[in-house]
């Protein structure tokens, strides 16, 4: 077989290769989220209260501690779980209890969730409990918000600035 014939036979092989690479590099399209919906993202990372309240140490107890470990109060390391729920127009969209992180359960508890909702004006209520109270909530926020099509609405928490944040 001469080189010209061989070259001509190679053309379809190279074409198949190019088309396969080119096609799968872009197609088929992938639908990550419905384009006509809004997406609510809930992301909370918060250090809850310790499972037992801290106890103030007496001056004698403090003096008994090694100098480099002296402190005013003694706290249990382990923290309580974080409980929270998100309600939209009265429907519970998210209810979750998150355990504190870390080998000793002394790190922050985290919640990260997202869900789609119909765009429009909604009454968004978020409640959060970070203590051992039997009922009721430590933080709560209810606001009416416009949730836009194709946009994120985020629910976060910053204890130092007052608690739950909507954006």
């Amino acid at each position, binding site marked *: *077989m001469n080189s010209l014939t*061989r070259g001509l*036979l*190679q053309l*379809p*092989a*190279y074409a198949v*290769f*190019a088309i*396969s*690479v*080119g096609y*799968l*590099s*872009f*197609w088929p*399209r*992938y*639908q*990550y*989220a*419905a*384009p006509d919906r*809004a*997406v609510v*993202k809930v*992301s909370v*990372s918060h250090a809850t209260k310790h499972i037992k309240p801290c106890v103030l140490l007496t001056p004698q107890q403090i003096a008994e501690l090694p100098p480099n470990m002296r402190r005013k109060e003694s706290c249990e390391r382990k923290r309580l779980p974080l409980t929270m729920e998100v309600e939209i127009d009265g429907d519970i969209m998210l209810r979750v209890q998150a355990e504190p*992180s*870390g080998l000793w359960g002394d*790190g*922050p508890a*985290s919640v*990260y969730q997202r869900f789609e909702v119909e765009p429009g004006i909604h009454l968004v209520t978020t409640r959060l409990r970070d203590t051992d109270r039997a009922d009721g909530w430590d933080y709560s926020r209810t606001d009416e918000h416009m949730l836009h099509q*194709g*946009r*994120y609405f*985020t629910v*976060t928490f910053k204890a130092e600035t007052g608690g739950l944040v909507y*954006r």
Partner: protein
Amino acid sequence: MAALKRFLRTLFLRWEAVLELAFGQQNNPVVNLGALGWYFFWIAAGTGIYLYIFFDTGITNAYASVEYMTHDQWYAAGVMRSLHRYSSDALVVVVFLHILREFSLDRLRGRRFFAWITGVPTLWLIYICGISGYWLIWDKLAQYIAIATTEWLDTLPFFGEPIANNFLNSTTLGNRFFTLMVFIHIFAPLFLLFLMWLHIQRHARGRVNPPRSLAVGTAITLLALSLVYPAVSQGPADLDTVPATLQLDWFYLLAYPLLDVVPGGKLWLILVGGTLFLALLPWVPPLKPTPVAVVSLDNCNGCGRCVEDCPFSAITMEPRSDGLAFDTQAVVLADNCMSCGICAGACPTSTPFRRARELIPGIELPDHSIAGLREKTVAAAARLNGARRVVVYACEKAGAEVLGGPDAQVITMPCVAMLPPAFIDFALSRRLADGVMLAGCAEGDCYFRLGDEWTRQRLAGQRDPYLRSRVPRERLVTSWLPAVSTRRRQHALSQFIDALRALPTADNERTR
């Protein structure tokens, strides 16, 4: 497992046969998949270096710099960007085909495990390179990748706080992760290159370059694809909007849509478990170890030809230990030896003409001795009773046993390059046969990597030990074909016997 290998082998051999029509055997892309992987890596690396010159590594200007390259400098950086993408995609294609083919040809078990298990982590690195690269463009696809990757990483119990928080909305966006990605996209390819180097460490003369015509052909193809369908961005990332519809690069991002149906933790388990399974394949089932080559110091003159010819770097030359008047001696590294016998074929003492003392060459396989090969040759010749008698020396992997009959007797060995060329001279000059056929694996696709190449060079007088010039070349034929090409092999033998009919028989030549 064996059935799966057989099935895949059949598929590959058929595909190879089709492509052989267009490319020939040496340039066949199917037998050059590993070398093509190297080639695509270098294209991606070279184009990446060029792109980095114009790339702004800050998250606020990264997208704009990529847009500049794509549109304002489309003729250079734009083409480079597309080549960068398509060569990376092509790398994934050839790497997966390479894995499947080596698996189907059973080139992973026994002492060949090293190349396999060092190849497995390269898969993860290739993906880390690709995914981090898409991240850097900071378009909507990058935004999706950033969110999906961090959400997926958050399913691992390593992070105190969700790292996906970094991409929650436009107020949380910072340079930290982006800078990390830039570093990863630079250092992951370097580590990948190190692993690729390690991957071929037990291969002498590792094939890292495809044949020139194949290299030119694939480069032109990728360039044409880059010009016809250039890679473009998918709009700037905006963490406040949902990247609803995306054009994924399925070669790199196939796992991401799976996260819609499989929980992230389970997908990690599947991928890590799959990787471990892949790494353990060389021992599924374990291969019975074969005896490695042994050196006979009394017969080794330290010439080093076995070192030159060993395809697996399994022999080294060490200072002489027996006091003979040679500087060095051959030493076999048992862990590297694949028992191919190519060293015995290279040894100048492997000559069947030797009569002075027992035929023990400087190096040989204990279960395929050169003395035994001589006995087999004599015995096979005695069984020939056709009008024209052919001794066929064949590789065990070549499936040449079917050629046996009154006209032809087949002597098999692990690799046809185990045959010292002197045996051809021996069979013909001693009138043991009218012709000799060498039957090996397909050209450029020797099971032991270099057997066909060394044999051709020895026959052509380009490599020690040469085939002596007195051997009538018309009485010698080679057949380099895959094991499944039984009919073609039989046809080649028939044609050879027909050609021999035009020549005097060995007996006639003797009496003439």
